């Protein structure tokens, strides 16, 4: 299978071509404002570099920050109706109660609450009132809104109320696209609802962006299918991505960590991705990034997405270096992409981390004579300081006492010299385009998050039911059944409930089925 992986970042669009597990070529080019031409350029550059033909490409995988940036920058968002099912419960906290006012203003404060929803054990809170929902639909139509998010209490346990409400809205509001919260998030109603609303307000944009990707691929002469990567490092096909743009949030760091695992052949490790301004550190478990356990904010909105637990520090290839006598101060200020004009080794006037590395003869770029005046004693202190900063954040990301290796990727990887603390360092080939590699190798997943009552069933029975459901979800998402593996099982007993209720979360992943 010949595949292309593309990572569309804010500044760079990186692309790689892979033949099976082998990287044939990797390129970096600039991201463009119109999305499409940047992708066309990257595709052309990587095809040229690999000397392969467009017709040879089976599949294209794209990771993009476009939708995250749209929410963060409050642009291209559609007016959206947020409908909650659960009355009389939940009335004390209406939808969007914790949103920043500016974002609420951009998508309009179109909030509706209706009857329906379930208790933790599946009993209805109140009967779904179809007339009430048709009344809300008429109001939505009258306001000229076409993006609708529906959230029902305990829908991850029982999704029927959301499904029926969705049908009613689809029928009554012509051209509407409806997002159901149970298709996106897990238990935790405000966070799940927030994700559903953000998804709904991105639907117009996603139609546009996915069409641009499709056109770029067609223009390059590639006939293969294309996919987008999700925040958990797995794939969704273009049609699914168009419906669930919110699932692309945070796919950037995920892709670079997955790429690092793949390029190094190590599945359990700490990954350090060093860019121009920051280093992002996270940990890999069975080849996937460890996810954050606390609520993650996107554009000021709390969500409970499956986000990698990444810790960032202000240390990159362009970080300022200041000698303060005893101590050396490094970052967080950085010359960023102006490194090639502002660093000493390029004739500039700012002492950067790259200058320190170049003075030791380890950079492989720039004019080393321009940093010959730096005292060896100072260089030694600066180098030790950089390594101490990295050691500190690697230590924070360690999730077990085992001596895991550290995989270093990203354009700023030259900063790393020798082991980090007591941990072995791996710098794989193609480290600069690890994010595009991560997109290219993405797999397909299925996840389940349910509350089980263990009074009727044993814990083992509940776990195997959850495993079965996760596996089915992975196959439905396009995984080849014989490659599916359960990669994560979490089982949290719920206090205060007799009957031993427990919340079980299981994730299954498999290779993309291309047959």
């Amino acid at each position, binding site marked *: 299978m010949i595949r292309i992986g593309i990572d569309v970042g804010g500044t760079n669009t990186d692309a790689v071509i892979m033949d099976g597990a082998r990287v044939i070529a990797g390129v970096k080019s600039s991201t463009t404002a119109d999305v499409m031409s940047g992708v066309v350029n990257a595709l052309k550059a990587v095809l040229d570099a690999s000397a392969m033909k467009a017709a040879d490409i089976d599949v294209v995988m794209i990771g993009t920050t476009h939708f995250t940036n749209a929410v963060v920058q409050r642009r291209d968002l559609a007016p959206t109706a947020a409908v909650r099912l*659960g*009355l*009389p*419960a*939940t*009335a*004390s*906290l*209406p939808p969007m*109660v*914790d949103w920043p006012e500016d974002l609420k203003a951009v998508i309009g404060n179109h909030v509706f609450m209706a009857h329906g*929803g379930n*208790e*933790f054990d599946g*009993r209805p*809170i*109140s009967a779904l009132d179809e007339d009430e929902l048709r009344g809300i639909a008429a109001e939505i139509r009258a306001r000229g809104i076409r993006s609708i998010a529906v959230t029902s*209490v*305990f829908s991850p346990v029982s999704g029927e109320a959301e499904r029926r409400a969705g049908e009613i809205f689809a029928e009554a509001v012509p051209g509407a696209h409806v997002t159901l919260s149970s298709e996106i998030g897990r*238990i*935790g*109603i*405000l966070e799940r609802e927030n994700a559903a609303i953000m998804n709904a307000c991105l639907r117009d944009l996603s139609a546009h962006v996915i069409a641009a990707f499709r056109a770029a691929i067609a223009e390059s002469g590639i006939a293969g299918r294309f996919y987008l990567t999700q925040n958990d490092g797995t794939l969704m096909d273009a049609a699914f991505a168009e419906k669930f743009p919110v699932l692309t949030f945070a796919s950037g760091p995920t892709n670079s960590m997955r790429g690092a695992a793949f390029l190094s052949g190590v599945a359990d490790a700490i990954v350090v991705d060093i860019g121009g301004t920051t280093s992002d550190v996270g940990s890999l478990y069975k080849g996937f990034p460890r996810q954050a*356990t*606390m609520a993650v904010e996107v554009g000021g909105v709390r969500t409970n997405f499956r986000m990698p637990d990444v810790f960032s520090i202000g240390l990159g290839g362009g970080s300022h270096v200041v000698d303060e006598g005893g101590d050396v101060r490094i970052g967080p200020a950085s010359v960023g992409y102006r490194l090639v004009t502002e660093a000493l080794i390029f004739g500039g006037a700012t002492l950067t981390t790259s200058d320190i590395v170049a003075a030791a003869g380890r950079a492989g770029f720039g004019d080393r004579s321009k940093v010959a005046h730096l005292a060896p004693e100072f260089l030694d202190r600066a180098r030790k300081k950089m390594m101490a900063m990295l050691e500190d954040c690697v*230590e*924070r*990301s*360690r*999730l*077990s*006492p085992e001596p895991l290796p550290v995989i270093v990727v990203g354009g700023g990887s030259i900063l790393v010299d020798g082991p980090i603390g007591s941990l072995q360092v791996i710098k794989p080939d193609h480290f600069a385009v690890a994010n595009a590699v991560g997109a290219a190798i993405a797999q397909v997943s299925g996840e389940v998050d349910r*509350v089980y009552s263990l009074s009727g069933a044993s814990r083992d029975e509940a776990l195997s039911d959850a495993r079965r459901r996760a596996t089915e979800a992975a196959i439905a998402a396009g995984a080849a059944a014989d490659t599916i593996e359960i990669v994560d099982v979490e089982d*949290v*007993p*719920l*206090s*205060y*409930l*007799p*009957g*031993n*209720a*427990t*919340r079980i979360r299981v994730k299954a992943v498999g290779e993309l089925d291309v047959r």
Partner: protein
Amino acid sequence: MSAEKGYVLTEADLLPLSIGAALLGTGGGGNPYYGMLRLRELMRNGAAIRILPLDALPDDAMVGTVGSIGAPVIGIEKPPEGRETYRAMRAVEEACGVKMAGLIAAEIGGANAMSPMIAAVHAGLPVIDGDGMGRAFPEVQMSTFSIYGGREGLAAMADDKGNVVVVRKAVSGRWMERFLRSVVVDMGAGAGAAGAPMPMSFLREAAIPATVTQAIEIGRTVLEARAGRRNVIERVVDKTRGKLFFTGKIVDVRRELKGGFVRGEAVVSGIDACSGSEARIAIQNENLVLWIDGQAKITVPDLIMNLELDTGEPITTEMLRYGQRVAVIGMPAHRLLKTPKALEVVGPAAFGYPELTFEPLGAER
């Protein structure tokens, strides 16, 4: 009510209150985030909440407790209708034929710090600055109100649908706990509850004083230290008159479910000044015992608070996981929790550690 006493809560007090309440929750008590949002909504719609010191109301004024009970997961998936605790409170008034003059928290630690404030908005009553624990405990009979005999065995529970159940008479706190627990499951594992009113003359003796204000001040300390990039842990230690016992990284968390409670243990490997030492923290819903290198250093009812080392964010027992860097702060419990009578109910033996003797931390507050 004398108008010059106490103060009116502002929106700016809510975030500090939620942080302080979470810290005093000593790992339990539930997440106050949703409660904070509810209060903010009510305030933005014009509600004013007056906090009164313990000496404000006359001796014969009757003050009741309210709170939410149930599993924390219900709180994050099915937020209340809003008037559950208010309906429970009215049912108690009706059952005992007494009008309440104010409300007080049974538990300042965690989500229930906000419950009386929310019910007070609906009832138009003031909230008394104090509570029955000065922290969080898992069971209703573990409050000073029960320990010192101020409560009659009367309580009411209300759900989001309008159902109200009154327990007219429970012969002990344990019986009450049992009844409330079985009703709460039928109500969807979450409900509003109200207890029997108590005269102010009793509360002045039996309530832990000024804990609402204390929670707000602790929260402010955390926020100010963060904003000024100061050492959050040091500031919290100062403010709580506590002591930093241990800093380290969590290397193991074990949990099991026993009788409806999560029991477990977190193992912390020392860093910085504690390098080479190992701490263990017994957790039920709350942090119960701290051992350092095998020696018990803090036990209930003294407070054991786990803070995220860099941000000072309180870590609940449900959030504990491998790799977290924590500061363990000990804070002396109020003297009302340390009498022989109180220790029978909230001492180490009551939580299943009969082999441990309660050795109070110094500097009583």
